[in-house]
Structures are given as structure tokens and as C-alpha cells.
């Protein structure tokens, strides 16, 4: 059972306090987008063995959505950060690089 630190309230939250929300950093495609763009947005997901970015909500705590970078293999957490961003902050990317040099995920590395 994971422990993730909520970047809003600072609580080291047990997984039972959280609800998962799937992949992070999806770019929304609405009316006017191509079939491929829309398909990618709605259905195509990363399924990495290793570094991954996810959405979590501190559902039974402060109620805020946040993002987490963790390793799907070892469950190591590289960091959590507020959801109001379109890409992982440098601090998080550096933390991952320190542990998993040469990592990449989607368009990020």
C-alpha cells in the first residue's frame, strides 16, 4: 500500500486516503481535433515498466488533485507536485534522473 505526500496539505497519505486518476499530463482534444488526436487523448496510454506519471486525488483529505512520479517496478516515488502544470517540474525530472539516468516517458526525458 503506497504512501504519497500530498503537495497541498503536506500529509504523508496512505493509499486508502487517495483515489487514483490514471495517467498524468494528458492534453485535451475537443471539437475540431482529428480522429487520431482524439483517439490518442481518449484511449492511448503509456504502460511503462519503470518511470511513470500519475494523477492522484487526496480524496479523503484535502480533496486536491496532484501528480506523482513513481517507478511502476519498485514503487519508488520520485516526487509529487501540484496538478496545475502541463509538464513535470524540473525538480521532479532531476530527482528521476538522479535515480534512473536516461529515463524517458512520452515526450518527457
Amino acid at each position, binding site marked *: *500500500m*503506497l*504512501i504519497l505526500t500530498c503537495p497541498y496539505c503536506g500529509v504523508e497519505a*496512505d493509499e486508502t486516503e487517495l*483515489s487514483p*486518476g490514471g495517467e498524468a499530463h494528458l492534453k*485535451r*482534444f*475537443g*471539437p*475540431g*481535433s482529428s*480522429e487520431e488526436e*482524439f483517439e490518442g487523448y*481518449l484511449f492511448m496510454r503509456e504502460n511503462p515498466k519503470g518511470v511513470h506519471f500519475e*494523477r492522484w*486525488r487526496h*480524496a479523503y483529505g484535502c*480533496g*486536491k*488533485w496532484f501528480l506523482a512520479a513513481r*517507478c511502476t517496478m*519498485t*514503487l*519508488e*516515488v520520485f516526487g509529487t507536485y501540484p*496538478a*496545475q502544470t502541463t509538464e513535470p517540474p524540473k525538480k521532479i525530472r532531476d530527482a528521476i534522473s538522479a*535515480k534512473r539516468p536516461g529515463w524517458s516517458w512520452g515526450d518527457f526525458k
Partner: protein
Amino acid sequence: MSTRLPTGGRLIDRDTQLDFTFNGKRLRGCAGDTLASALLANDQTLLGRSFKYHRPRGLVASGAEEPNALLGLGKGSRFEPNQRATTTELFDGLTCESQNHWPSLEFDIGAVNNYASRFLPAGFYYKTFMAPRAAWKHVFEPIIRRSAGLGKAPTERDADRYEHFHTHVDVLIIGGGIAGLQAARAAAATGVSVMVVEQTAHWGGRAPVDGAEIEGQLADYWVRETVESLGKLENVRMRARTMGSGVYDHGYVLAYERVADHTPDDDRPRHRLWKIRAKQVITATGAIERPLSFAGNDIPGVMLASAVRDYVVNWGVSPGDRTVVVTNNDDAYRTAIVLKEAGLDVPAIIDARPEVSGALPEQARALGIAVHAGRGVAKVLGGKSVTAVKICAQAGEGAPVDEIPCDVIAMSGGWSPVVHLWSHCGGKLIWEAGNAHFRPNPDKAPTGHAGEVFVHAAGNANGAMTTSEVLADADAAGKAAGKAAGGKATRKAAPKAKEEPSEPMLPVWVMPQGADIKLRGKMWLDYQNDVKVSDVQLAAREGYESVEHTKRYTTLGMATDQGKLSNINGLAVLAGSLGDDIPQVGTTTFRPPYTPISMGAIAGEARAELFQPVRQTPIHTWHEAHGADWEPVGHWRRPYAFPRDGETVHDAVKREVLNTRENVGLLDASTLGKILVKGPDAGRFLDMLYTNMMSTLPVGKCRYGLMCSENGFLSDDGVVARIDEDTWLCHTTTGGADRIHAHMEDWLQCEWWDWEVYTANITEQYAQIAVVGPKARMLLEKIGGMDLGKEALPFMQWAEGELAGIPARVFRISFSGELSYEVAVPASRGLEFWIKLMMAGEEFGVMPYGTEALHIMRAEKGFIMIGDETDGTVIPQDLGLNWAISKKKDDYLGKRAQERSHMTDPDRWKLVGLETLDGSVIPDGAYAVGEGENANGQRNTIGRVTSTYFSPTLGKGIAMGLVHNGPDRTGEVIEFPTLKGGSIRARIVDPVFYDKDGEKQNV
């Protein structure tokens, strides 16, 4: 025969005698006995029948690894099957019975399977019960079900209570043997908090039985001193009778405390499940002795050498008068010596090693015990108990060279560290050829949230085999864990133990080495699931090369003991058959719990009314007092109907509908979701959320709205009211409030985070009562306080004021087609308001109505219900709701999805009304069939029923359904086959059955 020895027994109190019964027989044991030791003391060596072949079985082990001695324990509401006699502490009045036999333990008809064992090989079920298909239901399945499962299921509700404890600790130590105790000492000295759990009632583990000496004292003495000194430390907690059950991600550990199993009726909870968050975990879980695979190794009387020693030393019980020891290592000599010293006969030690020297064998020889080197067991003789053993050359094919009469065989195939808890969270193993076992690989330890190692194995569990090694290893583990958890390093050295010289063991996987099929077919690997050496070899021949596949094919290690005795032996046999090395074959995955834990402990307090919190409306008590027939809706309880004396529920529903349509009805609608959306960008936000336009809704007005997922499917509906310039109140379905609120927050926080919008779920702040029916206005005017006339409050508007002195917000909306007001009052005044309405309404014939009347009335009006007309594959366009989809908006959630070709295809199943030709009611969920058949030879379906009721208003069955091109087929008659046979014919009609022009609601 097995019996109580006149002296000895370090754990028993001979002065306290306890009475118990086994299969109705009255027996007597001592305080401190386990059920196993007490049964053995009463010469009860036959304890059950095996699962598949119904072979007689007795005790093999003395602890958690015991595969055979599973008994039905207790009676009535305290009956529990499959309780392990070796881990059950004896108490006065205990009753137990043996399992898996008929008509009796001594004479069991199922034992014919034993003689047919040649025809019941590995994979028997897969190979046999294949065809014909029809035979499954009537022949195979009933037979398999009857022979499946051990023990009987309890028939009464559990009389005991259970609880959960939550705790945090720096270092958790699992296992209270000398390794666990020394690790605790070392960790505690670093200043961190420490918790030690031990699955048995006693501290110290095996060391005292094995004659260890620590710091110049007997192990017993050292254990007592250490436990006492740890008990005085404020940073140390110790729990006996508590098993570390599973180690999970990020230092989460479950421990299972058997609080009152041994003291039933004393009012304490029976079991306690500990949910522990530990920074560091030390598994000091010891090791388990392996059986040897020789023919007849399952006959009652064949036991692990360590278990024989335990029964003598711990409980003063002799498993038999004449014990032959069979071994491949030095440790089993300790058993021979203990037996001899207790005055029992040890006619021979059969040692597979060609050369036997060393301190322990010499000591045995000095006691006059014959040691046969290079020998093995050809065959054990006996049926329900051992009578003799035939010995042969280990290197040969099993030609007997001698026969030795005996009643016990003490076997030892070496020791395997208990690596289960290490493995639960990803710890890997390495093969240690010298001891022929897997032990934790320190380079591949389980890691925590920061990538740090958080599990350390210590002592036997880490492959340390002598007392000195165990203490040094545990001390190092304790120091490392303490430091990793934030403690200060200490320099105190580990205690020293007396040297225990030991000669190398010899791996022996089949005895004798060249045994033929007849012998291999009687060598048991997994006692509980009746898997033999020959089964694993057959699996290998049939191509099952992966250990995981072999496990499932043969069921090796899949019984309730999870293969504690059989895993390594089975693996070795498989490796031998495949010509591979054991490490190449690898192990199966260990999964929690370490030993079975009770369902009660898992449930904890969450049973009966605490199983799930029930949400109650402010008017709940009134409903209860007036005979509500309850319906669960989400977590809520809502009245389904209010049956009166002598009335069926069906009658009540009918009455409630008719009365509402003729007079006035009250519905408790408090469960309706109410979400306030406020802020400068609230209108823009709601335009994205709803398919229609909400930003243009004038203050004071209400509008029905639909919400879709990004995938285009209809997800929720409800009426939205504009409260003021930047505030909207969104009503959701009863079950949808939390989900929709979360949905709103998700989009606000993660997509449109620069929009200034605030949401609040205020569902529980208001009681909402629908006053419905032609006399609704009269009733509200009577209680008075607001002008609710046609002009003052037209349809689809709302007004605020006071009714009967209670602050109220009145929405003129209707889900029934009648003149209807939904009145929201503060939750605290909901009951008062309801009662006032009931009293004032008497002259108008007011009656409460429940959810079923609500459903029928909305179906009569053709209103959809989320969850009935929708199922996650339905778009609003399918339901004729195009009028509620804005064509002016560039975007809303689901808009892009609804533009996909399949969604815009005119050729879809669409909503229609259905009117049965004979007036009957179409069964719920019925499908309409059309021309032709599908690939499975079934008739093609052309539609299905989504809502179906008997309409009291119209006096006939009405339904709504989704039908292929439905609206284009109005007037057509389609056919719904029923489960009973035959079919119901229904005409496709407009879904609005009642008051099409809305004259009744618009008065």
C-alpha cells in the same frame, strides 16, 4: 504408542489438567499443551484423511507448517473448520472433530480413491472432465463439488467479535526467537521505537529445544532475561500470539493476533488485525525442516525430526516407543539423542551420507545408537500407523537390506529459511548449495518509497544456521534497521554462543536415488493436496517446464499450508526431471497471508450495521415509524413504499401513485445531490459540463440539464437553478452527488485551473420534500408564508421565503407530470416541515410515497432515469434528448466524442415507449428479437427493455426501451421472448404515456 512421558515438558504445567473432546471422545491434557501435543499424549495419532486419496494422516510437524492435522474446532456459532492442531492452544472444554471422511475416521469409504490412485494422476480433472458439454452440469460438476474443499462450512453466525488496530513503528520485528529478540535488543539500543511480534505464545523459538547455550547460559535462561529486559524498555512493544501475516508496499505490514482463541467466552475480541506502518522490517521468521521423499512417508508416525524433538522437550510427549531417525544432515541426531535421553528406544539412525563422522553422530554412537551410513528408506510399512521400515542403499534402486520394527520415523531433509515475508514485497532469493536451500538475496531486498531497503532478514530466516551465526546476523540486522530508521549507531557486540560443530549435509530429493515408479508413486511431496513425486515427474514429462505451471497442474503447494513443507522438495524433483539446476527452475511466488487468517479478523468491526455506513435523510425516523419498506440507493436508504396494515408492497405502490395523481403526495427527495457552483467563471464552467447552455439561464429560473463523459456517454442529469449572478445550484441523481462533485473538481483543478469557480457539495445541508399532485398548491397555501400561485411562481422557476415559519427554497419542477413543488429546508428542520405537511394535508388526502411510485410516475411521463435508460453506452441523442443539447456551443464535455461516425450513425438503438398488446408487464431487461440468427444460432436482437412497470394510472403494463431505429418504427409490434417460454408482444409508441401536453403540471 504415543504417550505422556513421566517427566519433562518445558511448556506444560502438569498440575493444571484440561478436559477436551476429539470426535466425541473425552480426553485430558495439560495447561501449555497445543491441541496436537494433547492428542499425541492421548495416543491419538490418526487425525484425519487426506484430500484426494483419503489416506490416513497424522501429525507431521509441530508448528505453522503442519499440513495434515486440520480439525473442525468448536461448536455451533463458534465452529470453525480447518484449524491447525499444532497452532491451537489447548483450553478446558475444547471440542474438535476430524475432517474429510465418511462414515468415520477409522473406516472411510473415500479411501477407495487410494486404490484408484493410478487413475487419478496429476491433471486428472483437466484430462477427464472435458466432453460432452452437457455432462458438466449434471455429472462432473456435482461430483467435483462434493469432493472439493476440506472441512465443513459453519452454519451459524459467528458469535465472536474482531477488531483492527492501526499503529506506526520505526522497526518492526517479525519473529520472537533468539534472532528476533537479539535484533530487537540491537535496534532498541539505537533509540528508535521497536515492535516485536511472535506467532506462538512463547518467546525464544527453537533454540531452547535444540540445546543452544548463549553467553554461558542455557538458551531458556537467556531468552527469559532478554524478554524481561526488553519489556522494561519504553521504546519496545512485544506481542506474542501475533503472526506477521504479510509485508506490503512502503512498509505496510499486517499482523494477526489471536487474542482469545485460547480463552473463549472471556469477552475479549477473538482476533485482532494489526495494520502497521513500519519504517524498517526485520523478518526473523526462522526455518522449516524439510521432509524426505521415500515410499510411505505419509503414514501416521512419520514425522519431522524437529517435531519429534519438540513434542518430547516442549510438552513431555513421546510420539512413539521406537523411533527410527532418517536424515541427510547432523541436526536430526539431536532428536535421536533427546529420545534416548528421555529413555525411549532409537533402534537406528539411517543416514544417506556415505561417510558419517562429526560430534553429533559420535555422541549418538556413544549412546549406543546404530548409525547406518549411506542408507535410505526403501519403504515404510503400516496402514493407519507405522509398523516397520525397510532400509536399503541410498545409491541403489530400493532393494531392502534390512527391516526394522518401529512406530515412529523421524525424518530430516535439511532446513529451509522461512522467506515468505521477505518475498511478499519483491525480495529475491539466492540458492545456497551448501545447505541446499534458498535464502534472501541481500542485494535484491524489498525497497520502500524512497528506494531504500526496508526489509532485512535475520537469523535462520537469513540462512544463518548455528546459534553464533544467528545472533551475530540478528544483531547486525537490528543495528542496520535501527540506523536506517533514524537511530544512533551503537558498538555493543553480539552475544556469543557455544560452538555447534556440524558436518555438511547431503541434498537428497528422492530416497533411494534410483527408486522405481512403484516407490515414487508412494512418495508424498505435498501432504495436504496429495501430490507425489510421480505427479511432478509426470507434469515435467507432459511439458510443464515452468514451476508456476507445474504448481497449478499438480496443485503442489496450493493447499492452505502454501507448500511450507513441499515447495523445495517439489522444485528439486522438477529440476531433476528437467535436467536443470534448482536455481534455474526457480521458486513459485509466496503470497500473504503467511498462514490463513480468519475472515472475522479481516472484517474486523465492519459487520452488521457497521459493515457500511448507511446514509439517512433527516426524515428517516418518521419513515421508519411509518412502516417504510426500504430500498438501498447508493449508500442511502430510501423508502420504496409505505405499506399499510394488510397491504402488500405492490398494493401500497399502486395506492401511492393513484393518490398522488388524484390528491397530493409527499416524497422525501433529500437524497438528491445538490452542488453549489459559484464564481465569475461558473457559467462558462457549467456550459462545458452540461450539454445545454447554463450561462444564459436567468436568475430565478430552473433548467433541466445533461452531463456526459468525455467519451460522449450520458452520465448524469438534473435540474439546475440560477441562484444569483454568479451562483448556480446543480441537482444531481441520488447516487451521483459525490461522483459529479469529484468530476467537477477534477476538471476545475486539472484542466481549467485558471477559471475562478468554487464548488461545494451541500447535499446534506438541506432536506428536500416534493409536494406533488393536483392539491399540492392548496396544501402549501394552507401552511402558508409564500405566494406560490401560477403567476407568482410559474413552472421551472424557484422562489425563496418561509413556509410554516421555516426558511424554504421552493422549486417548481416536476418529475411526475403533476403540479409539483420541491421544497428545500435546512436539514435540521426537515422532519418538522414534513410533519407539518402531513398534518396540514390530512384534509387533502396527503400520503407519503416511495421510490417505486416515483419511478412509475416518471415512466408514465416518459422521463428517463440514469441507470435505467443509461448504462454507459447510451448517448443523449439515443434518448430523444437532442433538445437538451446546445448547437450554439463550440465545446462541452462529450461533444467531440458525439461527433464520431458511430455516434452520428442514424442506425442506432433509440428510446421508444412500449405498450403490451395484452396489457401485461414485460419482464425487466427483456430483449426484443427480430429476423434471423447470429453466429451462435441465437435469434437476432433488435432492442431491449430499460424500464417496465404496471401503470396504476393507465391500468396496464407500460415500458420504455431502446429499439433499433425505434422512433421510425412507431406503431410496429415487436416480440419479447420470456424466460418461461412464449413471448410478449408490444407495440412501439411514444414514450410519453400520460398527459402529453403537460397540462397537469402547468396549472
